[in-house]
């Protein structure tokens, strides 16, 4: 298994380590639900060194990516970030990713489990483009600080940039814990205000320790991938291999905001297939809550009577909503909040109720 520079640190903290996308990563340091609450109430620190980080250089970087990506890369303002996907010709996603548009490069953050496939796909499609693909996954690392206290904590250890002025889904470069030229983005996978920072492997311990120390009085704790999964699900964010995969396209997954059919973008791989799906979708990704004790799990059937409507994609105990939540696919005509269906758990039924997505929004007004 691959290891991030912080692997020994997680061991020393007593983390339970698991294989995640070929990487030995901390799934939890303590109770998962406590870790999720820590991020919602204070802030949490995540080692995300497993994520793939790929820089695209060269004159044609933008045009090249507009051929591969679903979103309109040329339209992304400099120093901004957009969600996008890479799809095959049939519209089946290879991966979803964040696209950082720099002034002389484009930087991509992709899923750990798909990094090799993505790189292979990218390299196979460079023909005719003046681009250089620089896989920085092995030499750099990535840490996230997420939660209401993230800004005040990161500010204590950051110089040479104005974090207050850094808008959501924007990035800049600054000095973090004494490490210059650190890429800092106001992004995350938790639904909280927060940041993701990127730097060379050799600085990992220094940055991790520096942020932990700065965050100690604010109650910042290290958070594992278990709580991260709960937080992203509460926030309505998809995970490749669950809500989307080669068989589950972004349109019916409700990710049309990451897909551009604009003429200026030109033709791109998967465009025609996805345009056809967008004209007549047959199924839709929905979120649901369930009052029963059983936690929804990937692969459980969603039923109405004897009719198998679709399958559960993800599920979690939600400490924020204080109920069990899940996502799954149902026929598009049933994708209406309030609809009650049943989930089949190895022969036993439990009622689920479709609800508006996302389950949790930091900025949504509380009724």
């Amino acid at each position, binding site marked *: 298994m691959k290891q991030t520079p912080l692997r020994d640190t997680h061991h020393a903290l007593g983390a*339970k380590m698991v294989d995640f996308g070929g990487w030995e990563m901390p*799934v*939890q340091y*303590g*109770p*998962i*639900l*406590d870790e999720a609450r820590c991020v919602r109430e204070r802030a949490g620190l995540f080692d995300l060194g497993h994520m793939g980080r790929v820089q695209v250089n060269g004159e044609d970087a933008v045009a090249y990516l507009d051929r591969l990506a679903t979103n309109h890369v040329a339209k992304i303002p400099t120093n901004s970030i957009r969600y996008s996907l890479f799809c095959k010709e049939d519209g089946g996603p290879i991966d979803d990713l964040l696209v950082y548009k720099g002034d002389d490069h484009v930087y991509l953050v992709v899923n750990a489990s798909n990094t090799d496939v993505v790189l292979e796909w990218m390299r196979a499609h460079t023909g005719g483009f003046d681009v250089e693909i620089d896989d920085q996954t092995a030499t750099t690392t990535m840490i996230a600080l997420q939660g209401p206290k993230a800004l005040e904590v990161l500010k204590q250890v950051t110089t040479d940039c104005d974090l207050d002025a850094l808008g959501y889904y924007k990035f800049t470069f600054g000095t973090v814990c004494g490490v210059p030229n650190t890429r800092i983005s106001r992004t995350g996978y938790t639904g909280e205000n927060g940041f993701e920072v990127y730097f060379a492997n050799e600085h990992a311990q220094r940055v991790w320790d520096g942020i932990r120390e700065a965050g100690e009085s604010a109650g910042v704790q290290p958070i594992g991938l*278990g709580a991260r999964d*709960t937080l992203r699900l509460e926030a309505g964010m998809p995970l490749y291999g669950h809500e989307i995969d080669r068989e589950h396209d972004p349109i019916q997954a409700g990710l049309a905001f990451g897909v551009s059919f604009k003429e200026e973008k030109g033709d791109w791989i998967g465009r025609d297939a996805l345009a056809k799906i967008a004209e007549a979708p047959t199924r839709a990704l929905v979120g649901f809550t369930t009052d029963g*004790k*059983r*936690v929804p*799990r990937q692969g459980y059937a969603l039923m109405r009577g004897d009719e198998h409507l679709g399958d559960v994609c993800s599920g*979690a*105990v939600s400490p924020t909503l204080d109920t069990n939540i899940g996502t799954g696919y149902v026929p598009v005509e049933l994708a209406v909040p309030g609809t009650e269906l049943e989930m089949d758990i*190895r022969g*036993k039924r439990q009622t689920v109720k479709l609800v508006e997505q996302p389950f949790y929004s930091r900025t949504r007004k509380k009724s």
Partner: protein
Amino acid sequence: MRPDDRKYLSSHEWIKIDGDTGIIGITDFAVQELCSGNESDLVYCDLPEEGRVVEAGETFGEIESVKAVADLNAPLGGEVIEVNSAIEDHLEILADDPWERGWLIKIKLAAKTSDALLDAAAYEDVVAQEA
């Protein structure tokens, strides 16, 4: 060493034979695997009704943590005569005392032996390989 007054399955259940009765539970290792030492991560335990007849090796229930579901398998077969219903609302008992207070079901034994049963020493080897 785990208690040697009972037998084990490689799927981490134990059975203690008391006359015609078999008392069935899960091991500390099973609990640890489910919740990594965080008992509050255990969320649900589904146990059978009294009167149900289970075969040796059959799944009689399920236990669930925040992140995983595990089958509960019967080391020996028989009729379920008593269920520890306190467990369903107090899963922490399993973490505190999986050997005595954390028993799950009692069965009236149909047979007292099976090739799948391991003694405590053989079970230690199973755990050593998985840990």
